[in-house]
């Protein structure tokens, strides 16, 4: 369980985070989405006590991270897979983490096995690792203390398709056993496949949060009819919102069966009635973060 309570972070006149609050629940994978520089990494750094917020606070399992007696046993953290001493071997990095946390040395081999780093690879210095191998090593470091919370910043970066699939199954299994997973990404497809809950951040503000099902459902229903004016009126009087999406097309913020019933009662002939499926995460993401995108009117 991770609780973020009205975090604000100011660097001089620049507001990196503006009143950010959300929760990441046990048993669920929470996807933390946002464009580059939106504040994802800053939020995660504050969570683990590396950066002090201007105001607000973050707790993990009910305590400030810095107050955890042995944080590695409760929270697995991967902020940047490349932030490792290039002159150490992968095995040595895991050994150091295991010793710091006080877990038995056999956990090192178990973790190497779990993330599929061979003994030869583990004996190489990290300088010679690909980004994908570093990510695997980072995941191993995060998991070695057998924590119940995972905080991962862009863990899928640099992984090949098989690696991404592996990571997805790993995190799914972890959450299904009751673990809390918070992962940030800008790989929308990845998040869409794995996350149960979504937090969308743009320009340091939370622009949307909720379950994936709810957020993606906001796309609504598409209905095609020659009598758009009549139908729109009926929909409005039913207390629903309809947007014109073309000369004979409406997008209604409701489910198809509701819209279908209204059309039947109004007696308007329909040409087409379907859930506005296609949007998906990418549309939602671009729409929600439109004002904060570098590219301007991306949506």
């Amino acid at each position, binding site marked *: 369980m991770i609780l973020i309570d009205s975090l604000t972070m100011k660097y001089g006149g620049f507001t990196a985070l503006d009143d950010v609050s959300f*929760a990441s629940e046990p048993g669920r994978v929470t996807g933390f989405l946002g464009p580059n520089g939106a504040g994802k990494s800053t939020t995660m750094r504050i969570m683990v006590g590396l950066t002090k917020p201007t105001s607000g606070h973050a707790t993990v399992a009910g305590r400030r991270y810095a107050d955890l*007696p*042995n944080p590695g046993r409760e929270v697995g953290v991967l902020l940047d897979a490349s932030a490792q001493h290039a002159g150490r071997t992968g095995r040595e990095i895991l050994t150091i983490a295991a010793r710091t946390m006080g877990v038995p040395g056999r956990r090192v081999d178990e973790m190497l096995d779990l993330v599929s780093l061979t003994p030869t690879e583990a004996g190489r210095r990290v300088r010679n690792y690909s980004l994908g191998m570093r990510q695997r090593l980072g995941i191993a470091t995060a998991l070695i203390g057998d924590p*119940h919370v995972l905080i991962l910043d862009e863990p899928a970066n640099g992984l090949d398709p098989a690696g991404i699939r592996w990571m997805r199954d790993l995190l799914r299994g972890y959450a299904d056993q*009751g673990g809390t997973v918070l992962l940030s990404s800008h790989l929308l497809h990845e998040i869409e496949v794995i996350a149960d809950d979504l937090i969308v951040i743009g320009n340091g503000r939370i622009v949307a949060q909720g379950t994936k099902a709810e957020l993606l*459902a906001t796309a609504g229903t598409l209905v095609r009819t020659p009598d758009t004016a009549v139908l729109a009126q009926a929909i409005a009087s039913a207390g629903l919102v309809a947007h014109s999406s073309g000369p004979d097309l409406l997008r209604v913020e409701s489910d198809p069966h509701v819209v279908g019933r209204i059309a039947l009662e109004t007696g308007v002939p329909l040409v087409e009635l379907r859930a506005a499926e296609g949007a998906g995460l990418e549309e939602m993401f671009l729409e929600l973060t439109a004002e904060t995108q570098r590219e301007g009117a991306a949506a």
Partner: protein
Amino acid sequence: MSTTTITPTSGTPASGTPTSGTPTAGARRTTYPPIPFGRILGVELRKMFDTRSGFWLLMSIGILAVLASAAVVLFAPDEEIAYGSFAGAIGIPMSILLPVIAVLSVTGEWSQRSGLTTFTLVPSRGRVIAAKAVAAVGVGVAGMAVALAVGALGNVVGSQLAGVPTQWDATAANLGFIVLASVLGQLMGFMLGVLVRNSPGAIVGYFVYAFIVPTLSGVLASTQDWYRDVQQWVDFQYNQTSLYDTVGLSGDEAAQLAVTAGLWLVLPMLVGLWLVSRSEVK
């Protein structure tokens, strides 16, 4: 514990509970004991030598010690085949290179960015940095102990090889001051580490500090009478290196050491520690 439900943008509240009824990792409420300082110290000590640079620094000390000991046997005049020469043959490379290990122990966390992991596993930066300081001092003491022990062995073997009587020219007091000098050298490395927090910068700083400044100071002292009178009150290196040959400090010498150490070691170290507590680990 109060549960904050995720606020959805539309309608129904999020169902935040897993469906399985089995005990879950999330419900686990184990309290772990705090990480003892000894464990952090052990890890920091290990980290000094488990990198490629740490390994080669140790190797080069060993190689230099062997070469220097051989040189003593081969080239030193008979009267200098004595304990001090052999201990120095190992001790001098150590006293130059071990502070580099103290430097890298601190700067690596920033330059190599391993601090991101170190300071998330042990959020208290003060404990990590204190462990590094203790480890640096410990390495200085242990290094000199090894140098003195191996030097004794070298003296016995070397004098046999050269066919001269074995001479013991060091007193217990002298050995004590050698260890003190080494500890001060280690603290200097540690100080430059916390002050600069960048490996190349701090190593350059170390060589300027340990070699260029003392050389300039020596040149100045040999040409300027006014400076020669005050040199011992301003030149920390002069006082520190003198410890390697001393058997006792006069009151003046002790005061000079304390004053210069305060100026060149303690003061910058305090600034460095303050900077470390504030600097962001990126």
